[in-house]
């Protein structure tokens, strides 16, 4: 009787493990599937001309250079605003802020900021940057809008990275005659940097792939030339993909998938860089 029960328990355990493993595998399938599918469908469209040329024939032929460059501009523009602000906010929250009503309000705001649908950011950007501040539909307005959307990601990951630096390092540094700011600069930020960078890249990656926030603030349907200043509108990969998939009749399907592939590679490359930074730092870490 006991033996039977034991064997039974054993097989229940095995079944449980199998189920869990299966579920883990299932979560991998969509990502692998998506990548392979797009690679398979769009791989044939990729050529030097596709990457370095302008679209022509009503975007039904030619390349997607303006969209690639545009996304690059928007990503850099977003970084310029969101990275310094986000890191500064994270340093304040992690190193200086006491637990007061004000800091609780700030934290609440950050959490809620992360939960706002991206199209709402788009509308907000339209109202504030495009119309009120009269930046027009421009790279500047779109970058600022994307920055607001990216901030919560950067702030919360950077804050977490700063907090994970052991408290004793701060105490020891202070006891050796360092000021608080010297301690932050020479020890805390240095140790938290890989974590901060990872957060920054993940945040920017999201910004690079977003359509809704730039829809009303900076994205152009089609431009015959590259933008010349931050006040010009620009084409961008995600929006271009949306346009050629829904707005252009008789669009060759390879170009759609080719564009998707380029966007995917762009975003995944950032992701891989973040992963490399993280694992390198983990190997080198001295605590």
């Amino acid at each position, binding site marked *: 009787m006991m033996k039977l029960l034991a064997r039974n328990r054993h097989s229940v355990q095995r079944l449980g493990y199998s189920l869990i493993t299966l579920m883990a595998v299932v979560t991998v399938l969509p990502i692998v599937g998506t990548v392979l599918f797009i690679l398979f469908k769009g791989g044939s469209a990729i050529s030097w001309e596709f990457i370095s040329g302008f679209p022509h024939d009503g975007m039904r032929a030619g390349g997607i250079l303006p969209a690639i460059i545009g996304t690059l501009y928007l990503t850099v523009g977003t970084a310029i605003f969101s990275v310094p602000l986000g890191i500064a906010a994270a340093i304040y929250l992690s190193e200086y802020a006491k637990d007061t009503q004000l800091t609780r309000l700030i934290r609440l705001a950050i959490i809620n900021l992360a939960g706002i649908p991206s199209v709402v950011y788009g509308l907000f950007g339209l109202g504030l940057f495009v119309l009120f501040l009269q930046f027009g539909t421009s790279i500047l307005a779109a970058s600022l809008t994307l920055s607001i959307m990216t901030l919560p990601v950067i702030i919360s990951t950077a804050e977490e990275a700063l907090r994970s630096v052991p408290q*004793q390092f*701060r105490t020891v540094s202070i*006891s*050796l*005659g*360092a000021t608080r700011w010297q301690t932050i600069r*020479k020890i805390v930020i240095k140790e938290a940097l890989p974590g901060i960078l990872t957060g920054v890249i993940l945040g920017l990656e999201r910004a690079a792939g977003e359509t809704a926030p730039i829809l009303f603030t900076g994205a152009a349907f089609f431009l015959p030339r590259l933008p010349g200043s931050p006040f010009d509108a620009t084409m961008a990969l995600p929006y271009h993909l949306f346009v050629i998939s829904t707005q252009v009749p008789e669009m060759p399907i390879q170009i759609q998938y080719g564009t998707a592939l380029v966007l995917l590679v762009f975003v995944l490359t950032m992701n891989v860089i973040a992963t490399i930074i993280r694992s390198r730092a983990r190997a080198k*870490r*001295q*605590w």
Partner: protein
Amino acid sequence: MVINRLMNKIEIENLSLQYADGAESLRGISMGIRQNAVTVLFGPAGGGKSTLLRCLNRLNDLTDIRTSSGRILIDGENILDPKTDVIALRRKVGMVFARPVPLPMSIRENITYGLELAGEKRRTKLNEAVERSLKLAAIWDEVKDRLNDPAVALSGGQQQRVCLARVLALQPEIILLDEPTSGLDPISTGKVEAALQELKKDYTVILVPHSVQQAARTADHAAFFLQGELIEYDNGKKMFTAPKEKKTEDYIMGRFG
């Protein structure tokens, strides 16, 4: 007290303190601490020894304190005065912590960290300081060939002596040690204790020992703390052979603690 006031490096006057979270506190502590001697603060956990140490270099500034009163005079100046230059104070009053905390950098950088913050840029001066302080902390021979290795790669006992050297590099006048050997093996402990006996020739050493035995071995003067109060303060020999207070005797004999 038995100790001559003129010889005192530090004079603590009626010091009381309470943390905001209600942990360890100090009640009306008055004592003088002598120059060129090892003064040991001992007693059961939570008695206020670490708190007192952390008052002496104002490290308590980092903690939430509910109330504090009294004065601490170092060379006649009240360091609890809000106008005190705490950075200069902490260079003058160095601290070694219970667990060795090497900063995440090389052995050399650990030693030069404080000096560079103090504005010392000259390579030769820094190198001199590295050698001098590592020798003083009795660790030079073990690390001289690998000064650029990460300090965390050393053994616990070596790390703690590097931490001591790091404090010595700043040429402080007072050295505070908060159970510096609590995580170390007997051999490393012996090395640290021997280093302290050398150091007291030039410095004022204040030690919270990790055992009564260590207190008895190292103390020139000893102060027994119980629940935030200073019960007895005398020279080390008297304290550990013929304590005056019943509570001190009970603790030394191991009847509680």
